[in-house]
């Protein structure tokens, strides 16, 4: 077996399907399993995803929230078994991959403009994650296809002249 393939095989055993369907700028609830003695309970950490890093089983993300007036950041492995689930509450409108500029802000300035139109794209029978990914890919495909045709049409008349 090819060397690269075997890596994927191993990593796949560590990865949880459906995890990681969130983006930077999203406000998420991270449900953490916390073991106290023999009891297990769920603790929720809510905040904005300010960055993602790593690939495959190594992927991790940083969540920032304000507690009182103090910023708290936690880094979680995306596929960690101690995470019960990750819920996306809001999607922020962002223009960069790492939102480190939020660290310099307090109060109202930490809010991100909410992304619009995502709700319309989500069909009821689809999970929000799948819907969020799908339209984007389709759009790209359409965009790719269109400009070429457009160019051809433009060029054709010129040639005639």
């Amino acid at each position, binding site marked *: *077996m090819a*060397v690269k393939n*075997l*890596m994927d*095989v*191993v*990593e796949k*055993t*560590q990865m949880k399907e459906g995890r990681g369907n969130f983006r930077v700028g999203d406000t998420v609830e991270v449900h953490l*399993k916390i073991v106290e003695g023999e009891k297990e309970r769920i603790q929720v950490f809510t905040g904005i995803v300010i960055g993602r890093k790593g690939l*495959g*089983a*190594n992927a991790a993300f940083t969540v920032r929230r304000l507690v009182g007036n103090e910023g708290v950041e936690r880094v979680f*492995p995306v*596929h*960690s*078994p*101690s995470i019960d689930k990750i819920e996306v509450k809001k999607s922020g409108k962002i223009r960069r991959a790492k939102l480190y500029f939020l660290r310099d802000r307090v109060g109202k300035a930490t809010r991100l403009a909410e992304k619009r139109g995502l709700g319309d794209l989500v069909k009821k029978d689809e999970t929000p994650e799948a819907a969020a990914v799908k339209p984007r890919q389709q759009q790209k495909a359409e965009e790719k296809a269109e400009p070429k045709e457009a160019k051809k049409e433009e060029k054709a008349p010129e040639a005639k002249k």
Partner: protein
Amino acid sequence: MSSATGILGRKVGMTQVFDEKGLRIGVTVIEAGPCKVLQVKTPEKDGYAAVQLGFGDKREKNTSLPLIGHFEKAGSGPKRFVREIRLGAAPSDKPGDDVTVKVLEGVQKVDVSGVTKGKGFTGVVKRWNFRGLPASHGCSKRHRAPGGLGRHMSINKGVPKGKKMAGHLGTDNQTVLGLRLVKIDPENNVLLVKGAVPGANGSFVVVRTSLKEKVRLDKEAKRKAAK
């Protein structure tokens, strides 16, 4: 079951896995086996006990005739990587037997041998962890130099024998002892070993049951027997 206490393999790469507590462990993925037993060495005949294993196929075109004969004796095609695994007692294997990762089942710790990455001609700072000379205070153009070589009062004795100097680093045989065997996957012939292993990805390695762990277990067994 094979009596081999080790197996040959190939370093695939490093990644991480989660343990039962949800903590991340850095592991090396090793594609190990299936190996063919090419020859069996016994104390009576060879003076020591061992099995010779072969791993990784090679084209016949690139193999010398005597070697092809040697492989054919074991009913095997030519192998790229051939190594012996030393054993305590005469092995129960026969030439031609297959050795898979299952030989390491139940093993806690392993030693992994390989050839380190070649670093070429390197200076003393990298090769011997010298500190070099000062970065400032008038030090000019000699920041990574070895400094004096010793013997400043005795004349005509030259540089001391074995003085650490610049030279070739890497491509040495190296064994890392006592790595935890995190997982065995017989289906994919994969071993997961905690920590790093010598060599580049794709290079051959020998995985043996840990020597130190064996000594420790033997001592424990003895103590129990004494009680």
